[in-house]
Each structure stands twice: as C-alpha cells, then as structure tokens.
C-alpha cells in the first residue's frame, strides 16, 4: 500500500484491524519518512530500532481489539518515558533517563501503540515558537524558516509533516492549540484534571494539561479517549464519567448555542483573522447552530495574570534542578556556588527569565501586590466564563492573533512573543477545554485556526462542533515536502 504516511490515524487503525497493513509496514513507513525529515529537527531522541522490534513483536501476536493496535507514535519530550531519555528541551536534563513512565504515555502503550521517539519542544514548555529549546529550532513543514509555534512545536511539525500519525503535547497557556493553528493541524487542550499530570515534567501545575494533536478531529477524539483517565497518582486528577469520544462523535450540532465574545476582537488584529472568524460563525450557523454575542469582560487581563501565575509556579517547580539528584551539574567552589552555576549554565535565557519573575512575585513584600492580585483576577476571568455558559454551550474564537512567523522574528521582544497566546491563555486560567481546528489560509498561504472553548468536562461537545465545522471547512494543508531532498 502506497502513501502510508498520508493516512489518518483512523484509517491506519482500520487497515491494521482489517489486516491490510501490518504494524511493521506502518512503523517502517513513518521511520523512513522521519529519517528523510531531519531538516525539520522535530525529534530530540529517535527510538527507531526499538520501534521496529516492537512492531515485529506486535505482528507476531497482534491484539486487534486494542484502540491503537501497533500504531507508531512520537511524543513530546516532556513526557517521562521509562528507559528513554527525557530532556524537556533543556540542557539541564540532557542525560536524564526516567525510571518510570508517565500515566498518559502508559495509557497509549497499553492500547497497543509503539514509541517512535521524543519530539522537540520549548525548554520546559516555556515558549511560543520552539526557539527556546536547547536542541535547536524546529522547522514548520508549511514553509522554510517558519516557526511551528510552541511549546509543542516538534509535535506540531511531526504531525503536519507526517512523521507520526498523531501525537501528544502539553498546553499550559496555548502550547497545543497555538502550534496546531500554525501548522494546519488539530489540537485539543482538555479540561484541567482530565488527563493525569503524573510523569509530565512540571511547568505550572495549576495550568498544565496533556492533550492530543492530530490531522483531523476524529483522530483527536480517539486519542483523547485513550489518554483521559482518572489517576490516583495525580492529586488534581478528577474522577468523572468519561465519554467514548470517538464513538460518540457526531456532526449534528443543531440547536447548539455558540457564544461570540466581543473582547476577542483585539486592537491590531489582522483583517484576515477577523474574516476567518466571520467565516467560522457562518459555518456553525450552516450546521444549524445558533450564535449569540457574549461578553468576557476580563479577557485583556488574562495574559498579565498568566505571566504572574505561571512563572510563580514554575519558579517553585524548577527549584528541584539543583545538580544533586539528577541532571546537569556544574563545578562550584562550594555547595551554593555549585547550585548557582548549575542553574545558570543548565537553564536557557527564557527559563531563567521566568524563574526570576516567579521568584520576584512570590518574594517577601511583593506577594500580595502580584501573586495574590493575580489569583483574584484569575477568579474574575473564571467568573466571566461561568456567566457566559449560562447562555451558551460553547464559545468560538480565533486560535491566534496571527499566522506563523519567521524564525528569529520575535526572539528579542519577550512581550510580543507572549501576545501570541492572548486567545488561548484564558482557557487555561479557567481550567476549560479548548480545541483549535484549521479553518483557512492567510494571504501568504499559511494556515489559520479557530478555537472552540467548552464547559468543563464537555470535551464531547467541542469535539462535535469541531467535527461538524471540519466537514464544512474542508481544509487542505499545503505541504510541499520542501525539506525532502
């Protein structure tokens, strides 16, 4: 069968179940394409030999009742994988080989999938362009020298470039949805507490969530069904009734009420984004849904709130990297000197910047003015959504205020980089699910995404809306394989 890597996850699963394809054939196809795609720099660690062995083993005694039978899959290098190096994109974890498996990846392997390798990301998931990775920039398959977004940039690049049929990323302020939008792929940030955080390298614990990144909505629903489980090893994991998202997926969204928040019409937003949003509104109406103008009055306060809460939590979480228990260690004259040099040499500039911000806002004399204030505004932002959901079932917004930008374009201005996440951050602060789907192209031919935000635990509803819209939009990603010589 030709063009295995062009098939969706759902097609590959069917073909393996129907014995039209073996796991070995599928795995080989993705390994071959990954080998030819080194220029994308999507991988930090390749695990191809082991993947081939596992595929052969699977084919000898295939369990076709599994949800991901013999499917090869690369994952973001923020998930701890037992005996496979896990770096979080940082020099400080350059040699770290976990002795345990994250719950989310364990769920994936338990359903029959096979690890292809670990995908590049911004250092500790702190970035919106994958440029903060110690392992270098990632190329967007859409165009040369274009960022794939971040922090799950390697994941987005690998899915769009067909190096893996599907993947998982993590999203603290937009790190799944923004790169999905930049690469013409689908990315779901689940409700906080839906997917276990156990074994994921921590960034900001009250915001971090793992989620699927896929070529289409159905694939996304299938992976979400696999990764979302209650886990006693994560104290914020929530025990709720989870749907069979892919089985229950429907494009019937007649009568659904969809909110259009006026505050997302931000100053300086390109007309192309506004036009795309209007098109999206028309699509949901064409599907029989009703749109209602709503107000989320505290939207413009979300980013400043995020840039207190996230660095504060990060400064605390990253205190563990001290050169003693694991990771890189620099030589020092004494213990304190060793700590300070280890962290100064081991962390990159953006991570140091955020640790400094976090330390400052938590420090004596500033806690109330910054951290406590941010927690209060976070409450107001959540209240906005609670209020809106009395009137609507979901909310439709653009995913990002622009399409992908060039590598190096925003590296010298942290604030302009942060503004990328203006539409995605409120969702994390309120703990809600959000999905980005590709919805069109800008004048340069770069993809643009729309975001659907749901009520807490209502992943099925936003997947359904995304599924119905996907059919209407009929998006075709323009991938020319420019990097394959």
């Amino acid at each position, binding site marked *: 069968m030709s063009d295995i890597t062009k098939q969706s996850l759902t097609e590959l699963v069917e073909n393996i179940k129907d014995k039209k394809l073996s796991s070995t054939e599928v795995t080989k196809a993705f390994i071959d394409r990954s080998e030819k795609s080194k220029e994308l720099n999507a991988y930090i660690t390749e695990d191809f030999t082991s993947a081939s062995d596992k595929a052969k083993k699977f084919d000898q005694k295939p369990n076709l009742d599994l949800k991901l039978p013999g499917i090869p899959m690369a994952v973001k290098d923020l998930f701890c994988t037992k005996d496979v190096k896990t770096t979080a994109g940082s020099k400080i974890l350059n040699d770290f080989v976990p002795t345990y498996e994250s719950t989310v990846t364990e769920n994936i392997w338990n359903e029959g999938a096979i690890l292809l390798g670990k995908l590049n990301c911004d250092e500790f998931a702190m970035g919106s362009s994958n440029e903060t990775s110690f392992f270098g920039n990632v190329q967007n398959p859409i165009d040369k020298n274009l960022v794939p977004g971040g922090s799950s940039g390697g994941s987005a690049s690998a899915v769009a470039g067909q190096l893996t049929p599907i993947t998982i990323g993590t999203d603290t302020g937009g790190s799944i949805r923004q790169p999905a939008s930049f690469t013409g792929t689908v990315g779901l940030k689940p409700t906080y*507490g839906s997917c276990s955080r156990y074994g994921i390298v921590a960034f900001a614990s009250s915001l971090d969530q793992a989620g699927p990144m896929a070529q289409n909505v159905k694939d996304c629903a299938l992976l979400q069904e696999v990764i979302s489980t209650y886990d006693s090893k994560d*104290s914020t994991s929530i025990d709720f009734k989870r749907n069979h998202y892919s089985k229950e997926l429907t494009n019937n969204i007649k009568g659904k009420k969809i909110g259009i928040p006026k505050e997302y019409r931000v100053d300086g937003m390109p007309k192309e984004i506004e036009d795309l949003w209007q098109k999206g509104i028309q699509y949901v109406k064409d599907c029989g849904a009703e749109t209602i103008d709503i107000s989320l009055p505290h939207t413009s306060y979300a980013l400043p709130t995020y840039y207190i809460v996230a660095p504060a939590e990060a400064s605390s979480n990253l205190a563990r990297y001290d050169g*003693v228990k694991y990771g890189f260690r620099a030589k020092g004259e004494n213990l304190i000197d*060793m700590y300070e040099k280890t962290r100064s040499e081991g962390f990159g500039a953006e991570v140091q910047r955020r*640790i*400094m911000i976090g330390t400052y806002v938590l*420090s004596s004399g500033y806690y109330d003015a910054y951290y406590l204030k941010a927690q*209060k505004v976070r409450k107001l932002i959540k209240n906005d959504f609670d209020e809106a959901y009395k009137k609507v079932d979901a909310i439709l917004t653009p995913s990002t205020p622009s399409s992908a930008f060039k590598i190096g374009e925003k590296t010298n201005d942290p604030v302009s980089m942060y503004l990328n996440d203006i539409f995605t951050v409120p969702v994390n*602060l309120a*703990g809600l699910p959000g999905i980005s789907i590709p919805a069109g192209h800008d004048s340069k031919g770069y993809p643009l995404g729309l975001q659907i935000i749901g009520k807490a635990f209502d992943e099925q509803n936003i997947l359904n809306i995304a599924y119905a819209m996907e059919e209407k939009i009929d998006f075709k990603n323009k991938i020319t394989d420019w990097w394959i010589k």
Partner: protein
Amino acid sequence: MSIDLKTIKHISKLSRISVDEKKAEKLAGDLNSIFDFIEKLNELKTDNVKPLTSVAETTLKLRPDEVKSKNIREEIVKNSPEDNEDYFVVPKVIE
C-alpha cells in the same frame, strides 16, 4: 515601578541563579518591560474577590498510608551526576 540592578541581584540570589553584570542588565530590561505589561492588573479593584487557588473543584481524596514503591534505591540514584553507591555526593559543606 522599576526593577534595578540591586533587585536583580537579590532575585538572582533567591533563585540560586548566578548572574554577571551583563546578564543582570539584560534581565533588568526584560523584567521591566514584562512588569510594565503586568501593571495593567492594577486597573481592577479586587478587594472583595476571593483568590482562585485551584480550578479543579474537588477535595483531595484520602488514601491509606501505605508504602507502594519498594527497593527503588538504585533507581533513585541512577540519574544523579555524582553518587557514592547509596548516597548523593555534594561539595563539602562542613569545614
């Protein structure tokens, strides 16, 4: 509000990240532009707002206090940059 070099040195000490003069100046510039942006929050009156500490509206589950991981001493020290069998090794702390 402005974050001066003295403050940068103080935060650097608290966060155990060494900074030289050049790096401190760069950080002061970056942090000032970020805090200018954060100051926007002061537009809001929040005296009577309860701070949100967790979006997960759930109480922590209790569990029996049992040992679940056994004999993992080797695994624990496996990734340490320097160890002496069962111990992590650090630079001398007592003269």
